[in-house]
């Protein structure tokens, strides 16, 4: 298994858990690793040291026994020799057994009792000029350090003492137990410390995450507390500075938007006024002049009966009438006075019939809930202009046959819907700048009245336009 895969497996676990668990894992892992490592190390070192000590003790005890047993063996005081062995065993808890063999291999004294374990004598022996010989015996009661020491250069026999490892094991186990207990206690303290540390570390981070969400939702007033003078504290500071900048930027943008809206409103109002003035001028002055001209031409035919002149004057009269009609249409388009005088429905009826005539379209016009009702001039103008723009677009681009226009008043809102069966267009695709500007104009007009503007269209699927304007703002 490659190291990379191992790391991936590790990260699959470590990466998926929370910072809290990570810190806890680090602390607990380190404590356990350290605790177990030290326990193992101490255990081994202690066992080694105590085994060495056991061997030394075995040697010194056996040497001592050999020295003290010499005279007892020489004077054949076997009872005292036995007592010597028994006392040595009584005074040294580690002594598992002791016995003395004479040069002929006879057991002179032993601590086993009635006999001696089979094969025991043969397991160790020391030659007469040896200081001692220690072997480790594997017995049914554990390992035994068996030392043989010649007595009186072997002339009086050999002393044998076996020291059991039991007390060493007990001591080592006791120390191991204590170390493990310490490790567990330190682990518990570590868990508490890690929990506290995690709380300290994650509290500002959670704060930051929450504040970031709030800022994302537009609440620029949120500030996070700088908990500590560290990197996370710096981050909090930077976050607060950023939020402040964002708040200022948002403020500026809102002000600019306000200005823009005001500006657009005024431009539209000025445009309407200008159109109204031009329409009135055209109607009043140009129509007046043309009427005078037609009257003048009529008078002229009355004065002179020349047929040639008659014909020419008739032509001129026709031109004048056509020009008058053109001026009339232009004035109507600029600003139908019927809108101001009779209201939206009448103005639209007039405009729609004009469109039928001009574009040869079949146009249905349905009105619900506001036949006699007059709306505010701003709403009437906006809706009129939106429908006008929509029909201009249909007439110019849609190649439609039928258009349906719906005007409805419901729940304090006025809804206008214009649908056609034309070629439609791809809303996402780049279109002509003029058309896009036209759409934007409709949108702006609706937005100025806090209305909603929706346009749905797709190639070969026709177009439907939906405008909803509340009657009372706010």
């Amino acid at each position, binding site marked *: 298994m490659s190291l990379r895969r191992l790391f991936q*497996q590790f990260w699959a*676990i470590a990466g998926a858990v929370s910072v809290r668990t990570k810190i806890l894992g680090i602390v607990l892992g380190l404590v356990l690793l350290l605790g*177990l490592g030290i326990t*193992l190390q101490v*255990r*081994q070192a202690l*066992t*080694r040291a105590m*085994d060495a000590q056991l061997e030394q003790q075995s040697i010194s005890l056996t040497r001592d026994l050999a020295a003290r047993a*010499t*005279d007892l063996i*020489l*004077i*054949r*005081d076997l009872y005292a020799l036995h007592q010597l062995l028994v006392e040595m065993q009584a005074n040294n808890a580690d002594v*598992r*057994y002791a016995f003395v063999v004479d040069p*002929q291999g*006879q*057991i002179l004294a*032993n601590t*086993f*009792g*009635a*006999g*001696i*374990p*089979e*094969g*025991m004598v043969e*397991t160790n022996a020391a030659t007469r000029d040896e200081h001692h010989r220690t*072997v*480790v*015996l*594997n*017995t*049914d*009661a554990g*390992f*035994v350090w068996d030392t043989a020491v010649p007595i*009186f250069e072997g*002339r*009086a026999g050999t002393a044998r003492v076996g020291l059991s*490892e039991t007390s060493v094991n007990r001591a080592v186990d006791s120390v*191991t137990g204590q170390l493990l207990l310490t490790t567990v206690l330190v682990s518990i303290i570590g868990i508490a410390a890690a929990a506290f540390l995690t709380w300290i570390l994650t509290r500002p981070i959670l704060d930051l995450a929450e504040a970031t969400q709030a800022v994302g939702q537009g609440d620029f007033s949120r500030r996070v507390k700088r908990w500590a003078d560290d990197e996370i504290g710096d981050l909090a500071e930077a976050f607060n500075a950023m939020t402040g900048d964002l708040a200022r930027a948002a403020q500026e943008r809102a002000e600019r938007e306000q200005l823009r809206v005001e500006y657009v409103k005024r431009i539209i109002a000025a445009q309407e006024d200008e159109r109204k003035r031009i329409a009135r001028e055209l109607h009043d002055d140009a129509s007046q002049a043309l009427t005078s001209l037609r009257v003048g031409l009529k008078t002229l035919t009355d004065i002179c009966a020349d047929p040639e002149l008659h014909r020419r004057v008739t032509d001129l009269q026709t031109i004048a009438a056509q020009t008058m009609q053109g001026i009339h249409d232009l004035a109507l388009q600029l600003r139908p006075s019927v809108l101001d005088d009779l209201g939206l429905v009448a103005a639209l009826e007039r405009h729609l019939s004009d469109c039928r005539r001009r574009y040869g379209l079949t146009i249905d016009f349905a009105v619900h809930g506001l036949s006699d009702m007059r709306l505010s001039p701003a709403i009437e103008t906006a809706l009129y202009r939106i429908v006008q723009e929509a029909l201009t677009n249909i007439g110019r681009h849609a190649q439609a046959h039928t258009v349906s226009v719906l005007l409805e008043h419901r729940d304090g809102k006025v809804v206008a819907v214009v649908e056609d069966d034309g070629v439609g267009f791809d809303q996402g695709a780049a279109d002509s700048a003029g058309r896009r500007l036209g759409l934007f104009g409709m949108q702006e007009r609706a937005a100025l009245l806090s209305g909603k503007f929706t346009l749905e269209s797709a190639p070969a699927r026709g177009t439907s336009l939906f405008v909803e304007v509340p009657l009372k703002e706010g």
Partner: protein
Amino acid sequence: MLSRWLGLLIAFLLTACSSGPSGAPLVHLSNLKPLPAEVSSDVIPLRVAVAAVVSPKGTAESYQPLLDYLSAQLNRPVELVQRRTYTEINDLIESGFVDLAFVCTSAYVAGHDKFGMELLAAPQVNGETVYYSMLIVPRDSPAQGIADLRGKVFAFTDPMSNSGRVYPTYLVKQLGSTPEQFFARTFFTYSHDDAIRAVAAGLADGAAVDSLVYDFAVSRDPTLGERTRLIHRSPPFGIPPVVVSPNVRPQLKAELQALLLGMADEALRNPRAQNALRAIGIDRFVSIDDSAYDSVRELLKAVGSLE
């Protein structure tokens, strides 16, 4: 995956815990086998007892060359027999377990009078066959005689020893007392060199020892002489003799006697004989008459029964 690693770790810990060498032979300590009966040798050795004049180990070392010499000359194994007390040795001689014995003077007197212990030879040291009881005290002790040891701690050698117990008891009786009343405390060391060491170490304020042992011990360990002081010497007593059991066959007795008495001449050409004599610190073995021990008999009579 994780459990496998954990398993490996635990296995490692467990193996690390069970330390100790492997491959050693297995012995079942609880499986006891009865002790074998004493093997009786085909050849019966010549058993030589040496009374514990000096410590058993010192005795074994000193007498080994002599025993080796006897063994070589008799063409027979020789076994050294030692016991803590003179009485035990005497019992072994009486029963015939021991053939030849080096006994203390008073032990000979007792054995001779009780069961007919027979004199074989006597060692001659510095041309004499006598020895003395020497009263010694620590070097810095102000004592000038036995009278100055009143209320002190006194070390006896063997309960039966002439020089180590009978003579100092005699001296105390002369002063109209008994050792139990006279001394604050007494104890037995069972050998003369241990009595010297007890005085040298200050464990005893005084002791009476065999002059031969004292000279021999001091020659071996001069510090003993530096730390002890002689304050009284007894009249001469018959030297501790070499004896045989009354059960010994006359032929063996004659053979042994000839061997011992001839050792000095043998030593001129046999280094082993010379070595054997030197090791026990004597010039030669000479024949001796029972009358040489009459003075001891008188002393014992004067002291009375010793308990």
